[in-house]
C-alpha cells in the first residue's frame, strides 16, 4: 500500500494547490474590480483611458480566475464534482428565476428602488454556498 503513497499524496497536494491558486486569482479579480469601480470616483476622476485600462485589467484577470476555477473543478474527485454541479445548478436556477422576477418587479415599478446587478451576484453566491453545504451534508 505504501508503494504509491508519494504519487497519491500528490493528488491532495494538487487539490490544495489548485484551491490556493483559485483564491489568489479571485482576490486579484476583486482588487481589479475595486480599482475599476472606485478608481474613476476617487483616484483619477473620470479619465476614460485609465478607466478603460482598469476595465481591461479586470477582464483579463477575470479570465484567469475562470480558468483557475475550471482547473480547480477538474481536480476534484467525482463526489466533490457532483456536489459542485448540484450547487451550481441550484445557484443558476435560483439566479435566473429570482433575478428575472426581481427585474420585472423593477420594470413594473412594483419596487421603489432600482434592481442592482450586485443583488443578483449576492443571491448567486449565497445560493451556491447553501447548495455546497446541503450537498456535503447529504453525502456525510
Amino acid at each position, binding site marked *: 500500500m505504501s508503494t504509491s503513497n508519494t504519487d*497519491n499524496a500528490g493528488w*491532495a497536494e494538487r487539490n490544495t494547490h489548485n484551491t490556493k491558486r483559485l483564491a489568489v486569482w479571485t482576490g486579484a479579480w476583486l482588487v481589479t474590480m475595486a480599482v475599476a469601480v472606485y478608481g474613476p470616483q476617487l483616484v483619477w476622476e473620470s479619465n476614460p483611458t485609465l478607466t478603460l485600462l482598469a476595465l481591461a485589467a479586470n477582464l483579463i484577470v477575470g479570465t484567469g480566475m475562470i480558468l483557475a476555477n475550471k482547473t480547480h473543478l477538474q481536480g476534484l*474527485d*467525482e*463526489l*466533490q464534482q457532483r456536489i459542485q454541479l448540484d450547487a451550481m445548478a441550484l445557484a443558476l436556477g435560483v439566479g435566473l428565476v429570482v433575478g428575472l422576477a426581481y427585474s420585472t418587479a423593477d420594470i413594473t415599478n412594483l419596487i421603489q428602488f432600482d434592481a442592482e446587478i450586485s443583488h443578483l451576484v449576492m443571491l448567486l453566491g449565497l445560493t451556491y454556498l447553501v447548495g455546497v453545504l446541503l450537498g*456535503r451534508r447529504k*453525502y*456525510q
Partner: protein
Amino acid sequence: MKNRLKVLRAERDWTQAQLAQELEVSRQTVNAIEKGKFDPSLPLAFKAARLFGLRIEEVFQDD
C-alpha cells in the same frame, strides 16, 4: 449498490484516509461510498477492486 469496502479496509487495518489516498479521492468520498450514499464510477470501482486484488463483483454488488 452495496459494497464491501468497509470490511475489506478493516481486514487490512487501513483508515478511510489511507484508502482515500490510494484511490486519489477525498476521505469524505470513501465514507459516502462505504455508507452506500454515493455510487462510484466504473473507473473508481475498478481501481478499488484492483487495490484489494479482487474482482469488481467481489467488492461491489447490485442491490
